[in-house]
């Protein structure tokens, strides 16, 4: 059957070449969108590593000094007072200081040295309460606690991605990491948390490190740029006003800016998905156009072959077989277009700029887009096929 259909398609190769080309281009576009969507979906389905619901963060801008200037001891004391005041506020479940909060636009990537190897990893200096606010999930070891301030080394907690990069399968607990610039720094891993993806669901999973921030050490304290707050369940957004007033009462000349993390997440997702969504809408219109066009071409095709089809009917072919022939012909033509596209598309993970796209995304994207195109093409054959079955043999044989 397929061989016979191929022959029929081949007999009208001039017209069909263009249809094959059109299918080929549509396939490439649908594949590109499907691959991008699946790529994002795969990232989206990875665990985030923190709980963003009912969390606010507060940007803190001190009044003096540059970013690099050490904190004055009284500034560190003010920061500590801000934290205590937040914790005792009605409706606040937990509060902590950190370098950067989830979905914040900026990231703080620092150079680290481990066993003589330099690497970059994003870092957040945190106070012990951080685990109660964003709830990163501890895998092994322990979280940073208040007693760490008394140590003569800095306690750090790494996420699984960084642990794997540091020691592979070995036990990361107790390993010593130093600062690239200040080689004598002594940071030791005390715990491992699940992959912490601060940037958000659609960002790449990059290595992450939490370091214990000591408010008495100016170099640590200056990295505390943000306060994070977990609200008790059911706390209304009205809390923002008293919260800001509390902060302003303690540090009247500092600036504070409250961001609701859930809102920041929505903005982030919208900004990330907008280009894909608009391309998707355009592609949807293009496919609609292809379906209409192909239906028109097939219909015309059937009209032109009235005699041929009439002859088949006269020779005893059943209506269902005529319908199947027409749908089959479109399917075979579309199949040729797909056959052109497949070898190209399956090479995507090997081609220069796209090597970051894994086969795990390309293979399902290929299957989904090929099936969609095939299905749409067959849909285009349905109506012309039906109208072909309406042809009466007696009239068709006289058709000129």
């Amino acid at each position, binding site marked *: 059957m397929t061989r016979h259909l191929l022959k029929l398609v081949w007999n009208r190769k001039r*017209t069909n070449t*263009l*249809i094959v*080309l*059109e299918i080929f*281009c*549509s396939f*490439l*576009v649908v594949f*590109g969108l499907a691959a991008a969507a699946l790529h994002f979906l795969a990232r989206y389905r990875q665990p985030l590593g923190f709980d963003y619901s009912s969390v606010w963060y507060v*940007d803190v*801008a*001190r*009044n*003096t*000094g*540059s*970013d*690099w*200037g050490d904190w004055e001891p009284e500034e560190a004391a003010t920061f500590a007072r801000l934290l205590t005041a937040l914790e005792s506020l009605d409706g606040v479940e937990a509060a902590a200081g950190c370098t950067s909060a989830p979905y914040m636009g*900026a990231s703080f990537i620092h150079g680290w040295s481990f066993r003589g190897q330099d690497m970059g990893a994003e870092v957040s200096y945190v106070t012990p309460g951080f685990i109660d606010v964003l709830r990163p999930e501890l895998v092994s070891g322990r979280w940073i606690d208040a007693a760490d301030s008394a140590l003569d080394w800095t306690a750090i907690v790494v996420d699984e991605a960084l642990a794997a990069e540091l020691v592979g399968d070995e036990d990361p607990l107790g390993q010593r990491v130093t600062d690239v*610039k*200040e080689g004598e720094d002594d940071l030791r891993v005390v715990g491992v948390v699940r992959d912490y993806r601060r940037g958000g669901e659609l960002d790449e999973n990059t290595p992450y490190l939490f370091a214990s921030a000591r408010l008495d050490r100016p170099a640590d304290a200056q990295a505390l740029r943000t306060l994070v707050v977990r609200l008790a369940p059911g706390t209304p957004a009205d809390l923002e006003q008293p919260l800001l007033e509390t902060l*302003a009462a303690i540090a*009247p*000349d*500092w*600036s504070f*800016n409250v961001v609701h993390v859930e809102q920041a997440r929505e*903005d982030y997702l*919208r900004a990330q998905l*907008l280009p894909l*969504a608009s*391309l998707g809408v*355009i*592609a949807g219109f*293009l496919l609609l*156009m*292809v379906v209409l*066009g*192909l239906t*028109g*071409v097939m219909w*015309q*095709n059937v*009209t*032109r072959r009235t005699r041929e089809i009439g002859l088949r009917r006269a020779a005893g072919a059943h209506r269902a077989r005529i319908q199947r022939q027409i749908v089959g012909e479109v399917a075979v033509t579309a199949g040729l277009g797909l056959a052109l596209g497949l070898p190209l598309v399956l090479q995507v993970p090997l081609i220069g700029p796209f090597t970051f796209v894994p086969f795990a995304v390309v293979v399902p994207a290929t299957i989904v887009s090929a099936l969609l195109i095939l299905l749409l093409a067959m849909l285009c054959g349905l109506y012309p096929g039906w109208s072909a079955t309406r042809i009466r043999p007696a009239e068709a044989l006289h058709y*000129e």
Partner: protein
Amino acid sequence: MTFADIWAPISTAKSTAHEEQLLGEFQGIVLARSRADFPSIKSEFASRLAAAELPDPERYDALLSDALTRYGELARDALGREAGEPAPTGRFTLLVLAVVIAFMTIPALNLVNLSLSRILERCSEIGVRKAFGASSWTLVGQFLVENVVLTLSGGALGLVLSWITIGVVNASGLVPYAELEMSLRVFAAGLLLSLLFAVISGAYPAWRMSRLHPVEALHGRER
């Protein structure tokens, strides 16, 4: 990005840290006298930045920042370049063009296919006109004019549709702070582009038509 619910003078901020700090929330915006001034603004910014003193040279090697156009920023973000690297506007433009061409090939091929079947449908009409002495060029001209008329009516439909789409996008809040308006200039460019497409995609079918043999065509058959 330059949108906000409220614009407030910088002097109302309680903290004056932004006067000293290199890291922070602020972005500077420069209004150039003309586009021709962009390169000199960029080079002046770069030379001033190079002269800026690093607060802690022991810890930090370099301070990187760029004066970029909005398009340059878009290109840099899209291609994941770091500050300090030249904005890859050329590559970005190529990438956008490639996507646009990939998208536009489909309607173009679709149009060719449709035009072809329209011609074949009218095989006998063409045969009659040829038999009565119409030259190939007359027929090609007629066909192209038909194509243009169809495109223009499609354009009118497109005008209505884009008007509705703009209303929907504005109402949906999909793009924050978007107040999209109908731009005649963009619409005219779109119309011109589709006219171009109509003529180009009409060319091949018209050529096929001009080669139809009158006797064959009269029988409704293609050679």
